[in-house]
């Protein structure tokens, strides 16, 4: 919202406050309306004055130019121009030699084929006034401009514009009038003023034109009023008004339309002007749209409507989407003679629905959805007709036509000393009443510690006690209030399972060389294809955002892997040639019938680096390195971990395992599919991904003391088919010890050698294990150990092993 310092003076007497725009901005910012910028519209302008063209002649050598003799109040100056729109006797702005334009340009003299030109006469554009006038011609000033008057003191050329960010609850601040009331509240010593054009106007004549009825079957239209102006001449608005509009961010169009915009900016009431003769019929009905009804709005778009939208119709034809946007055919044109001004009051809920659903954020919709004071529809119409009279020379003393539904009246709100003192640690009720009064919220009942206040119709945001407290709080400021902590000791706080688990994962993986990353939860639409997921894989059916920013951020991730692969890609692209070890912990989003789940995953990636040369030889990592990390993660959480040969479409067909914790499958680990590695232009990428939800509970370790009796060690070497895994063999050995019926325990079993090649048949390998036998009750004799161990060898042979 742009606020003009000059126009503010029409509504409030700020001079006695001795206030600078910067001081006002600070006060507004701290009381809830942040001032984002302050602009001095004259910029660097210096030495620009009004001047009268005393004489005008064509240049003798070049007909393109005219030579003007200007009365600048201090003498006659000669100036050459290529503009064509001036004549003798016109007033213009003149920047003489040494003068500076708003953008900082300093003017000098210039020789035009032997005629010296001193400075220049200015167009609106050169004054920084875009859209105010034709940029190719000079800005011609009204007759009242006196030669020598400084430009910045004329027609609001030198204004100060504050850009204020208005919060959605304060629709009342979207006008100069509202800002003036706010400033009055913040500076109780100031006084409000009423501009001339806002004074009551005598309007008692019957309409000179036939007009039927205004009907409001839709209760969402609180009030609808029409004012009439006849005998209009459509032309430009007064220069000051045009400059005001431009400074406040609106393009001047013509006097009739400018009046509606001007009044809206001044008072906050959106208005609509239309040509009475383009109305389909001489009646107005405001009704709810029918489901499926269509309308062409002013922006040329066909809009499909629902029952929640409100239409303004005439003769059954929709002429406007109420409070949002007008239709195409009823606008003011250059030949318009009879103007009808509409001033209405609409439900913020209804306008809000329509404007949000259709994505139309017009000035009117923006204001109506933030609530426009219903009391304004009358006064704004009167002000607009007054200005139409002044700017368009029309007859306006016709009685406005009106129809009303229930208008929401403000309701009283009670303020209690108790709540005030709890919230603000301050409880001066008299002072509080004074503060509220400054904002126009008057005390209507005084019960001492409980007082009743009536908010003005412009402040529908004041409905509960807390709202009153906020007014007092923001007036007083929050910086002086004492600060303290809750008095009593807090109950034991719990950082929670998910934070504990997250801390455990990062405390495990970061020291193991992993860097923690955080990637987007949304993935490119085609990620399932890139991962070669089967179409019926649950991970290939992600939740999909209906209104994504781009197709690259469209599908909710079902796996953390693509984010890590992207991280690898970005790391290498940024010139990182060393090993990459990254992990991410976060949620994935899995469709589950009509609903979805958000399991917590941890995924890791290791890559040996682009440049693996090392003074200490090849130390490349492989499947077994990432296996160590996963084991560390799962076993130190207190769970048994198993790796079972597995398959994923995006993983290496021979180097992939499923990961189990206490028999529950958590995820996969292994080497990335070489074809995908090639797509990334890398080789040797190892990854894992597990659902850590099952690791939420941290198990307590169970400690067992070492036996006080010595252990006996025996080795065994077996010829094993390649298809049989180390885990299978170990299982068999353990089983054989168990089957022996001995009370001696196999305390540990450790693979210490793998051999294949010379002496070993194809398709086989030799696995050598060290076994440690121990009793908890006695020292074992050699005979006992030998007898058990030989028994184990025999049972292994019986299972088909070749014992070497």
């Amino acid at each position, binding site marked *: 919202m742009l606020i003009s310092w000059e126009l503010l003076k029409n509504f409030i007497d700020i001079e006695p406050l001795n206030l600078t725009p910067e001081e006002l901005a600070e006060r507004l910012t701290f009381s809830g309306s942040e001032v984002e910028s302050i602009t001095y519209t004259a910029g660097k302008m210096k030495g620009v004055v009004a001047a009268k063209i005393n004489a005008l002649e064509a240049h003798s050598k070049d007909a393109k130019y005219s030579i003007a003799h200007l009365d600048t109040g201090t003498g006659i100056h000669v100036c050459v121009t290529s503009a064509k729109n001036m004549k003798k006797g016109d007033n213009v702005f003149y920047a003489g030699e040494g003068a500076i334009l708003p953008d900082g340009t300093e003017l000098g003299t210039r020789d035009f084929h032997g005629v010296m030109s001193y400075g220049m006469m200015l167009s609106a554009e050169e004054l920084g006034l875009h859209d105010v006038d034709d940029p190719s011609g000079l800005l011609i000033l009204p007759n009242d401009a006196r030669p020598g008057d400084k430009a910045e003191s004329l027609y609001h050329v030198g204004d100060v514009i504050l850009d204020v960010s208005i919060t*959605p609850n304060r629709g009342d601040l979207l006008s100069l009038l509202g800002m003036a009331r706010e400033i009055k509240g913040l500076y109780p010593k100031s006084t409000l003023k009423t501009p001339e054009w806002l004074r009551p106007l005598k309007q008692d004549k019957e309409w000179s034109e036939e007009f039927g009825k205004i009907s409001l079957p839709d209760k969402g239209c609180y009030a609808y009023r029409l004012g009439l102006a006849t005998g209009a001449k459509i032309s430009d608005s007064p220069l000051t008004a045009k400059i005001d509009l431009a400074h406040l961010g609106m393009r001047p169009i013509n006097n009739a339309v400018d009046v509606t915009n001007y009044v809206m900016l001044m008072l906050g009431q959106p208005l609509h002007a239309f040509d009475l003769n383009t109305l389909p019929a001489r009646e107005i009905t405001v009704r709810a749209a029918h489901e499926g009804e269509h309308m062409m709005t002013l922006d040329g778009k066909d809009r499909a409507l629902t029952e929640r939208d409100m239409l303004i119709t005439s003769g059954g034809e929709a002429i406007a989407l109420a409070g949002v946007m007008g239709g195409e055919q009823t606008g003011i044109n250059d030949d318009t003679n009879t103007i009808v001004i509409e001033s209405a009051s609409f439900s913020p809920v209804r306008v809000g629905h329509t404007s949000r659903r259709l994505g139309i954020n017009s000035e009117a919709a923006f204001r109506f959805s933030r609530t426009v004071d219903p009391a304004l529809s009358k006064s704004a119409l009167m002000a607009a007709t007054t200005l139409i009279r002044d700017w368009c020379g029309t007859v306006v003393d016709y009685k406005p036509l009106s129809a009303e539904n229930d208008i929401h009246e403000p309701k009283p709100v009670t303020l209690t000393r108790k709540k005030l003192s709890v919230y603000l640690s301050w409880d001066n009720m008299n002072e509080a009443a004074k503060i509220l009064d400054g904002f126009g919220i008057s005390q209507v009942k005084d019960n001492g510690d409980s007082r009743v206040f009536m908010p003005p119709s412009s402040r529908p945001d004041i409905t509960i006690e807390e709202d009153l407290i906020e007014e007092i709080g923001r007036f007083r*400021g929050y910086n002086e209030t004492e600060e303290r*902590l809750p008095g009593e000791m807090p109950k034991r706080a*719990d950082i*929670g399972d998910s934070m504990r688990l997250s801390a455990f994962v990062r405390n495990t993986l970061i020291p193991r060389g992993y860097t923690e990353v955080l990637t987007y939860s949304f993935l490119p639409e085609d990620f399932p294809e890139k991962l070669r997921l089967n179409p019926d894989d649950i991970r290939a059916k992600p939740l999909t955002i209906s209104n994504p*920013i781009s197709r690259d951020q469209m599908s909710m991730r079902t796996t953390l892997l693509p984010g890590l692969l992207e991280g*690898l890609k970005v790391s290498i692209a940024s010139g990182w040639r060393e090993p990459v070890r990254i992990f991410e912990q976060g949620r994935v989003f899995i469709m589950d019938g009509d609903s979805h789940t958000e399991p917590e995953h941890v995924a890791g990636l290791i890559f040996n680096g682009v440049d693996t040369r090392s003074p200490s030889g090849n130390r490349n990592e492989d499947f077994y390195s990432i296996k160590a990390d996963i084991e560390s993660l799962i076993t130190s959480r207190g769970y048994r971990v198993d790796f079972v040969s597995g398959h994923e479409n995006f993983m290496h067909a021979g180097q992939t395992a499923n990961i189990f914790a206490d028999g529950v499958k958590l995820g996969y680990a292994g080497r990335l599919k070489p074809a995908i590695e090639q797509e990334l232009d890398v080789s040797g990428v190892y990854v894992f991904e597990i659902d850590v939800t099952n690791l939420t509970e941290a198990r307590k370790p169970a400690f067992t003391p070492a036996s006080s009796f010595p252990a006996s060690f025996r080795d065994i070497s077996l010829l094993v088919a390649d298809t049989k895994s180390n885990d299978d063999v170990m299982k068999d050995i353990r089983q054989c010890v168990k089957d022996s019926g001995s009370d001696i325990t196999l305390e540990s079993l450790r693979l210490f050698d793998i051999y294949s090649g010379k002496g070993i048949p194809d398709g086989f390998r030799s696995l050598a294990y060290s076994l440690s036998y121990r009793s908890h009750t006695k020292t074992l004799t050699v005979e006992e150990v030998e007898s058990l161990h030989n028994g184990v060898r025999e049972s292994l042979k019986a299972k088909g092993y070749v014992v070497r």
Partner: protein
Amino acid sequence: MPEENITVNAVRDSFRESLAGASTLQELDEIRVKFTGKKGSLTQLLRSLGKLPPEQRKSTGQEVNTLRDEIEHELDQAGKRIRDAENEKQEISQRIDVTLPAHGRTSGAFHPVLQTMHEIADIMQGLGYSVASGPEVEEDYYNFECLNVPPWHPARDMQDTFYFADGTLLRTHTSPVQIRSMLKYGAPLRIVCPGKVYRRDNDTTHSPMFNQMEGLLVDKNVPFSVMKGTMSEMLNAFFGKSLRYRFRASYFPFTEPSMELDIECVECSGHDEHCRVCHGTGWLEVVGMGMVHPNVIRAGKIDPDEYNGFAFGIGLDRMAMLKYGIGDLRLLFDGNVSYFMSGFGGAEKC
């Protein structure tokens, strides 16, 4: 007697003299033979004992035994010394360059935003706040409606939202967790809810995904001054110094009154008009907060006539950027290991 004593002492002196001159194991062996061998002086001394009168034999015998123990001990010691010295010569020949790169992996690095999340959660736990969580794909009801933002409300414009076909959405703040927690635990309540949130915004200062931590305290007669005290505890603990701060009145649909908190610029403390962090204003906007709106308390099935409270929301990304001096928000989410490792060494710097 004096004669015999002189003899024992003479052997000791002679031994010590020999030992002092020995520098190799071989010389040591020679000394051992010279004194303790079959013809050694100590052996001879022992043999001479028999010639002594019986009353002297015992005491002199003890002295000779002591001397023998001494000699053997000192020979052992000297042997160790010489062997150690010889070993050390060999060790020196095996010298390595201790500045060569380490074997195996060196430590990774934390993510500044997650580090910040854990730090603040820890601080808040100390103030009695538990951590609560909720879904990231949320229902409109929890994300907006029960936070006093009905569908038509212009405040929805403040948070441009990602939707799914079934009307669910990606939560735009962690506030829905506040409602869910009130419904689950009732009052009194102290929670913080950290997590990812999403808004349909993408430019240099906005990421469509970012991280937030909201806090909620519900109790009887909660004053603004407690919110103020809590904020200064939290921020001072996080930044590790006492910061100046200020409150500005503001608006959020779910709090009343609402305010925003600015802290003094952590980079320049307001002393640098060209500061890249605060752009010369000296202040940084870091927390939005307010006293919880009675409608929101009510939506949490708690009686607003009995209980009130405050809520606040902090951008964790912004906090991390301020604490760790990160300039560009987008660097946080692309998984570039070179960026995160740069804080701790990583590739050798030249």
